[in-house]
């Protein structure tokens, strides 16, 4: 059984990413279960998608200390979910901070760096990705989710291959987004190997 948690900020596309993982697992004949944050939090609040793959799963929510992998769409959101990570579990995170208005208003100066430092100190199995650079290069901030999926698969953390994910993208996304997302997937994978 594999438990994967996707943590981000509303609007970053965690829901689609979790669907792609689950659907790819199903294409392999496995069962999947997910839980999503939908509603008010999608307006810039914290959102978490739980993905569970395997045949004997009851709860859609991953219990604490049971996640094999956390995909952090934002460094502080990865940190927030650490209580879910099992011992020796892996974390892959985008290093780009999303600054809440509260930070700008109070001038608290959250930069994200303190979070990546904390991750480095506390997670042995850690992969950091400059996903923003890849998005800029691809000319779309919207593909952050697929860049991170590519990175996770590229690092061998997902138990799914890039080909499997690519196949799902081709099946499930509207025609006009397929090429961009396939690119995002391979760029993500390439970046994580280098890092």
């Amino acid at each position, binding site marked *: 059984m594999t438990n994967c948690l996707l943590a981000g*900020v*509303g*609007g970053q596309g965690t829901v689609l990413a979790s*669907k792609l993982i*689950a*659907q790819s697992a*199903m294409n392999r004949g496995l*069962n*999947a*279960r*997910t*839980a*999503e*944050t*939908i*509603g*008010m*939090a*999608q*307006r*810039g*609040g*914290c959102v978490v998608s739980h993905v569970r793959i395997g045949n004997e*799963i*009851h*709860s*859609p*929510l*991953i*219990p*604490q*200390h049971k996640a094999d992998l956390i995909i952090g769409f934002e460094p*502080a959101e990865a*940190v*927030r979910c*650490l*209580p879910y990570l099992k011992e020796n579990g892996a974390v892959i995170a985008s290093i780009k901070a999303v*600054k*809440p*208005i*509260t*930070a*700008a*208003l109070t*001038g*608290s*100066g*959250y930069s994200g760096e*303190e*979070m990546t430092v*904390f991750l480095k100190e*506390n997670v042995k199995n850690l992969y950091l990705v400059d996903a923003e650079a890849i*998005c800029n290069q691809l000319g779309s*901030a919207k593909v952050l989710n697929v860049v991170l999926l590519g990175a996770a698969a590229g690092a061998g953390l997902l138990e799914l291959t890039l080909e499997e994910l690519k196949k799902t993208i081709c099946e499930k996304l509207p025609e006009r987004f397929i090429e961009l997302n396939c690119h995002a997937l391979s760029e993500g994978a390439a970046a994580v190997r280098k890092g």
Partner: protein
Amino acid sequence: MSKQFLMGNEAIALGAIRAGVGFVSGYPGTPSTEILETVAKNNPGDIYVEWSTNEKSAMETAAGASYAGARSLVTMKQVGLNVAADPLMSLAYIGVKGGMVIVAADDPGPISSQTEQDTRHFAQFSKLPVFDPSSPEEAYEMICDAFDYSEKYGTPVLFRPTTRVCHGCASIEVSEERKKVAPEGFAKDSRWVIFPRLTYQNHLKVEARQPVLGEDFSSYRFNRLTGTGKKGIATGGISYAYTCETLNGSENCKLLKIATAHPFPEKLALEFLSGLDEVLVIEELDPVIEKELTYLCGKHHLNVKINGKLTGHVANAGENTVESVTAAVDSFLGRAAGTEPSKELPALPVRPPVLCAGCPHRASFYAVKQAMKGKKAVFSGDIGCYTLGNAAPLDMVDTCLCMGAGITVAQGLHRIQPDAVNFAFIGDSTFFHTGIPGVINAVYNETDIVLIVLDNSTTAMTGHQPHPGTGRTMMGEISEKISIYNVLTALGVSHVSRANPLNLEEAVSAVKSAVEAGGVSAVIFESPCIAVTKPQPLYQVNAKKCTRCKKCIRELGCPAVVLEDGAVKIEPSLCYGCSVCAQVCPFGAIERSEN
């Protein structure tokens, strides 16, 4: 049969199609919205689907369809059932011909709601049967059963999934088959006309039906009794999944799963209670199963201790989690608690939900705030994205109660405190839902308020559903747009104006004239939600001109305007180019970016 990865709401929709539903109505509300949308998306062509103006209309149209013999489905969130309570209560006496299932999705937490009410109480109150699925795959099967029971007993039935079932996805075997239902049409009969005498007669029938249904439910396939032992756990809904997760098939106890909390399957429950010393009840929202079991123990003189919310063993507010259920089960069964300590986390940024970057509501709130600077004013809000106008730095929502209440609460406030200008903000969809009667009330009773309609041409909060003002229906057909301007004018609102909130000067002066006009006056701020328009050229901060006064941040709170090492910057991936920050900056430092 094919295996699909479906969200609980999609499963409910496909299950209803399979059950031969012919008429579907509802009003959007998290976590129920995707049910109706999925029926529309997978409509084989012969199902009538509509977003109704409110839940009461939705339930009544569905009742009509069902009188004529069609299978009908109504969808809403739990608070929507309050709006539809009137037809619900009467319909419980009148009954239906074609199967009618009312889906009211509960939201423990709450995650996106005003209340943590429990629809199972509504079932007890109205004496209607209720189905409570524990997973998306079960929901797929159970919705078909719900139609069958509805027809078997000639009554509408309630179906109450909770957020984790609605918004959880699972691998589900989907059948291609579809039940054929050919509605006979409406047969005139006095049974459809409610009168006190008929009510009395039908009341007797409803009461007589209760124990019969309870007996029937004792053998219902999703009510289940397993395990052995002196201790027992009773549960239902998603809490059943959490319980299974923590028991992991290894525990020495009885397990009762209740999928129909009303009428309560007493026979099955008695079988569960027999031989037990103690019971732990794990359920979400109110102690419904717990009270039924406690009652049964009293009725049958059983010496079984019932633990749950009423005894403080389970939290009585908020949603359950695997962790909370594990803790309750650990102490109940005397299991050693897992001792994995969690590492202390550093201080994390707080992320309250906010209006999107470029959202026209931000501009509207800002304009009203500017227009009323230094004056005494109270701002009553309503339900929708614009409730988020309460956040700093806008701080423009002083009250929020329920759908449509901003307009009426403002009137009460004004009668007691007439020296304040009382504003009521309402979105376009909420205006049609329950706003209009409140406006009539103000005009009729001559209570001065300033109505601000935030018209963004969609139902944004729940994911952009059409409504009467959009000129589009759920079936995709073009319909006559209902003009909010004409409605207000026809109602006798003395001063009605329209303004573009993204033009601050125009917007502020529109608000000022509305306030000066007195009486019941209104400004309609018209600007589409950013999710339904195209991004315009973006804006950027010219570092040479920016004095770092931070007025843009302090007053507007657009998430795209950020501080980086003390410098003000606009995040290009978030900016929508609404231009409002540029109009706020006193130094002309925010400029259109060329690319």
